[in-house]
């Protein structure tokens, strides 16, 4: 237990000490929020869907969590050669504890990042439909964070070099984001796209966040939470398995 805690604490300390990085990683969500939020706002309004800023804010929060969580996992790749990971792999500690500490740490910083994005959204004019919404939203943020931190660990354990990283970005992370309904409503989609969005775990996360924050769940918050919990379980097992096979 003390090992998991120590490794978790290491991840959190590292995050809190890299302030420029925190600010930089707020840039992308902010860009989506402000440019798309205000740019597409009038069109969205005219089609009778209400405020686009209100609609897109939960999506942007989910995006912030997705990217932070996946990156923390992919950091393994670097860490394995030049960093501290090797030090932990020769320590007399079961791999499962190392993986758990790291992944929980990654999930925690992704969660903090999500809260920061939420705060920025509120500065930009986003309003949750009630204060009771916040604890529920935090629950969904935690689920999203764990799902993608575990996925990041699985990917980071499998990749051999930096070229693979581009591949993962373009063919996995970006599609997860774009297919999640973060930017557009999931109803009345053409068949293939509808299926693809249903297969994307982030769809359930964004839907849950929307349900909690603006009372607009398309799939239902119970279904959202269940799917996320199951996927989290699967990814944790997958991540633990991939991590246990790392050879330096």
């Amino acid at each position, binding site marked *: 237990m003390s090992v998991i805690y120590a490794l978790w604490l290491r991840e959190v300390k590292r995050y809190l000490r890299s302030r420029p990085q925190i600010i930089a990683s707020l840039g992308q969500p902010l860009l989506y929020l402000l440019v798309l939020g205000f740019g597409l706002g009038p069109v969205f309004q005219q089609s009778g869907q209400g405020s686009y800023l209100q609609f897109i804010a939960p999506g942007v929060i989910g995006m912030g969590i997705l990217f932070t969580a996946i990156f923390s996992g992919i950091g393994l790749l670097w860490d394995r050669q*030049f960093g501290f990971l*090797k030090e932990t792999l020769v320590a007399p500690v079961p791999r499962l504890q190392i993986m758990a500490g790291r992944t929980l740490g990654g999930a925690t910083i992704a969660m903090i990042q999500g809260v920061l994005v939420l705060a920025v959204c509120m500065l930009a004019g986003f309003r949750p439909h009630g204060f009771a919404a916040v604890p529920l939203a935090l629950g969904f943020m935690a689920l999203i964070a764990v799902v993608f931190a575990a996925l990041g660990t699985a990917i980071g354990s499998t990749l051999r070099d930096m070229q693979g990283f581009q591949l993962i970005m373009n063919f996995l992370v970006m599609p997860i984001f774009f297919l999640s309904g973060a930017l557009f409503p999931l109803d009345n989609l053409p068949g293939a796209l509808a299926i693809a969005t249903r297969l994307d775990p982030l769809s359930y996360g964004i839907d849950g966040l929307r349900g909690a924050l603006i009372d607009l769940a398309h799939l239902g918050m119970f279904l959202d939470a269940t799917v996320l919990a199951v996927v989290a379980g699967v990814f944790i097992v997958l991540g633990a398995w991939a991590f246990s096979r790392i050879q330096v």
Partner: protein
Amino acid sequence: MISAQSLNKAFGAVQAVADVSFEVPAGEIFAFLGPNGAGKTTTIQMLTTLLRPTSGRIAIDGLDPGAQPLEVRRRFGIVFQDPSVDGDLTAYENMDLHGVLYHVPRRIRADRIEMLLKLFELWDRRKSQVKTFSGGMRRRLEIARGLLHTPKILFLDEPTLGLDPQSRNQLWTHVRHLNETEGVTVFLTTHYMDEAERMAHRVAIIDHGKIVAQGTPQELRAQTGSDSLEGAFLKLTGSTIRDERADAADQMRQMGRMWGGNRR
């Protein structure tokens, strides 16, 4: 203390280590020398539970790394070829985390950290983030860290790579001191033959995955009729320059240099 018998490791069709056998008795300083790509690091990785041999037997203090990895890991400290301290943490935090990983009780941990950081002249900088340290200071921290859990064996994989003569000298003085006062068995690799000649009780030379000679530096000099270990080394391994294929690690090392290498 360290024993390898007919050790083999193949990566696909490439035989990285072929039929390697050696014995390192307790308290000895043993140098494992060879040109680039000869199989030194692969051998160390097998001895330290990071790689499984394709065939052959290893015993570390009588224990098999494949069967009892955690027990084996308790017994050695290692300084890797590439840095493995955490640049965002302070020197003290790096040491403390190592103590947690090796289950060193809290009170003993604090005492030993203070003793080691003072020994390696890093105590004044204990609250600084390691990314602000020079290459020599980082190396010293890695070595101090490797000793925190009082290992019986110390593995040093090219520990002096990129160090200035002062730091190098200081490092070897400490290693010799440890070997003499605490009886720590040392297994080292280096490209500097003079270091090996000065430090090692015995030397093994590996080339193309095979051990080509083994003995005390004097024996190797006599065997090849050379007046230095460097001469013996060149006679045994030839003077062709080895081109290793750049692997993923090399590419990342390059990137690390490009980005200033101070992210960690």
